[in-house]
């Protein structure tokens, strides 16, 4: 039997901490994080997780405070000259990690690198799209940068926190490839080592200017070092938190909340998320072209039960696409849970015996999708869940107007800016990139187009209200919920709270 010697050996080696004193210094704040950064180049990534890590190393012109309000960071002030011109006054005396001083030239270089075609060694930045219709970036005074737009784009300030400023001299010396692994930012932490796939180790930058003036305390970081430790398995992340190996974990599964709460040294922190979940119904298909069938589907699902039981109560139900926190969100007529009425509607639509449909989803949402499927089945919409790969499913559903197959698609769309433009247009405008339902409503398209460039905030809000009412009535999707982001946090951590844009800003976090 091999188990015994193995066990003995395991025990012997487990005793190694006695031989090799555990090497955990007091001042390391460790974050158990789901995904490694793809790259550390702020202009060459597309992933939220990568941005989360980068933003502890780099600062941007603007940032958001805990209430998601946009405030200046590296910029001292922002002035709108005209609907298409913005002036940014750059804070003086800000140091890069290598000791050089931030200039307006660095800002221009950074923004050009993102917005100009082929500016990154012949390639175009994947973040170009996030900068909208930027025409040019000019240094108009030694400490001032002007961004000129091709057309009015009111959400520019809301989008700028997603871009981090790099040093022109540094990029020119290490090159674009060098920037993927080397860091010279203005952020509160310097890069110590990136152990790919395993951890990113940072240490306090002592010459830090203190960060956004509107977010106290304005000072250098509290902890000596910060480590993002990559733990993709959620059970492992929770276990590491409970064992005290890490101090903050993201994506705490809802079912682990009680365990983290009941554990002595840990607590749960949540923040409203920005990702809306919904079920697309193929309006070109044979069943869901009928609004009655779509309404029946919406009525068949007991959203609240799933929120309570599977999501641990950590989600806000929605009846339109917008999160309750988003700009333009408003109270909408509710589609109540009523399986009997759903059956009746189905019968009215000509399906007294119910219908057989499939629902596509990715593996990560299998549980929820199956729970929904069994609710639909109970109301006569006999649903089979088909788990597919993300790549295949987006091919199948996000066809931009090309014909599509399939009945239902359980999916989601993120809205980190909390501006409707980012979520409403792609998912509902005819043939747009995220319009998986195949919804086509010229009237809605017109409103969405107008709202995108409307500068009057109140008018814009009203337009989105109209749009929400329209989709609420047409029901191209079953709008489900916006889950909260759930973090598990050691009670030793102070001065930190989660933020709605999934950023983990460790500047002010301390470890007791």
């Amino acid at each position, binding site marked *: 039997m091999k188990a015994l010697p193995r066990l003995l050996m395991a025990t012997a080696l487990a005793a190694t901490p006695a031989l090799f004193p555990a090497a955990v210094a007091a001042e390391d704040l460790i974050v158990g994080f789901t995904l490694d950064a793809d790259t550390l180049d702020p202009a060459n990534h597309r992933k939220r997780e990568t941005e989360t890590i980068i933003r502890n190393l780099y600062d941007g012109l603007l940032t958001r405070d805990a209430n998601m309000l946009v405030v200046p960071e590296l910029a001292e002030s922002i002035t709108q000259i005209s609907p298409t011109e913005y002036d940014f006054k750059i804070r003086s005396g800000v140091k890069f990690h290598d000791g050089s001083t931030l200039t307006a030239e660095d800002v221009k270089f950074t923004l050009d690198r993102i917005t100009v075609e082929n500016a990154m060694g012949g390639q175009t930045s994947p973040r170009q799209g996030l900068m909208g219709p930027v025409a040019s970036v000019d240094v108009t005074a030694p400490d001032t940068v002007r961004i000129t737009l091709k057309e009015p784009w009111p959400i520019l300030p809301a989008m700028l926190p997603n871009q981090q400023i790099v040093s022109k001299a540094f990029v020119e010396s290490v090159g674009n490839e060098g920037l993927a692994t080397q860091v010279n930012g203005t952020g509160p932490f310097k890069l110590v080592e990136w152990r790919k796939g395993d951890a990113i180790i940072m240490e306090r930058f002592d010459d830090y200017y203190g960060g956004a003036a509107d977010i106290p305390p304005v000072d250098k970081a509290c902890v000596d070092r910060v480590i993002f430790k990559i733990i993709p398995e959620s059970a492992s992340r929770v276990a590491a938190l409970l064992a005290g190996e890490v101090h903050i974990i993201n994506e705490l599964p809802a079912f682990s909340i009680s365990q983290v709460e009941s554990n002595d040294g840990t607590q749960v922190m949540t923040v409203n998320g920005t990702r809306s979940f919904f079920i697309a119904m193929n309006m070109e298909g044979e069943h869901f072209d009928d609004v009655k069938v779509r309404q029946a589907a919406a009525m068949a699902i007991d959203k609240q039960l*799933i929120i309570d039981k599977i999501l641990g109560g950590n989600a806000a139900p929605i009846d339109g696409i917008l999160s309750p926190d988003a700009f333009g969100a408003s109270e909408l007529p509710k589609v109540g849970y009523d399986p009997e009425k759903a059956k009746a509607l189905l019968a009215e639509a000509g399906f007294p015996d119910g219908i057989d449909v499939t629902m596509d989803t990715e593996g990560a949402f*299998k549980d929820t999708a199956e729970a929904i*499927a*069994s609710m639909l089945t109970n109301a006569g919409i006999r649903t089979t869940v*088909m*788990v597919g*790969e993300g790549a295949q499913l987006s091919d199948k559903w996000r066809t931009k107007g090309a014909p599509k197959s399939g009945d239902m698609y359980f999916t989601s769309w993120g809205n980190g800016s909390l501006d409707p433009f980012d979520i409403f247009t792609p998912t509902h405008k005819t043939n747009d990139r995220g319009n998986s339902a195949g919804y086509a409503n010229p009237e809605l398209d017109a409103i969405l187009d107008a709202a995108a460039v409307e500068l009057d905030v109140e008018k814009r809000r009203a337009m989105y209200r109209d749009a929400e009412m329209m989709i609420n009535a047409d029901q191209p999707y079953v709008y489900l919920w916006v889950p909260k982001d759930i973090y598990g946090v050691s009670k030793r951590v102070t001065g930190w709270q989660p933020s709605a844009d999934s950023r983990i800003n460790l500047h002010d976090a301390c470890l007791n």
Partner: protein
Amino acid sequence: MTDATLAPTPPADSLFRRNLREFRRNRLAMASVIVVLIFVIMAVAAPLIAPQDPNATDLFRRLQPPAWVQGGDWAYPLGCDALGRDILSRIIYGARISIFIGVAVIILATGVGILAGLAAGYFRGWVDVVIGRVVDILLGFPYLIFAIGLMAMMGPGLMNIVLALAYKEWVIPCRVVRGETLAVRELEYVEAARALGAGPRHIMWREILPNILSPVIVVSTIRMANVIILEASLSFLGLGVQPPTASWGSMVSDGRAFILEAWWVSTFPGLAILLLVLAINVASQGLRDAFDPRFSE
């Protein structure tokens, strides 16, 4: 020794029967055959045995513990999963998937492997070279990665899993058959058949195949155990059968997120895999001892 000249091999049949008798004497092996049979019966008669509908969800029974733990219920002896489905019933139905895939992959792979191996070993020459190259190339791929790639290509589905595993699996019986064929084709009785004017097809099927069947059977059973683990691994990585069909691998996979709160969700399906695979392995060990004493002690 002088009397060691090889007489024409006796018909394979009597040897086969003797080996079978030998196998029956091995008590541990027979016990595992019974375990395997129990699993097979479970799979076939699943609707009669399972206490609950394996796919019926009940969110109020979410992560309900096994019956003997506080909060359990004997109607759900091994507890419930995250959607409140009965774990025992899902394990019973899951036996269908594991056994079906194991058997289907092995039948497919062994069939193809026998054809290719016989051809390579009997004709030799360029046939052997071509088959050998293909085998080399396929062996160059890591098994799981190849299967994952194929699943991504073909999309999910039960038959696709069978194909994804069989695409590489046939290489193993092929190599065994080729080696045995090379050894057997020169033996006197094959020569005799050839001298009597028998065609290659007759010789391969009637003269060679029956005499190399023992090692093929032995290898196939061992591989079946392996295939079941591979299927579970694919399911574990999320590339298995479609929900709500229960597959042991995906049950373990689903349950690992809850392992801290609800150990039973992935522990029991894991045990089921272990038990079935162990039983097949022990049985095949017995088969090997009885049928192919060269490999055994």
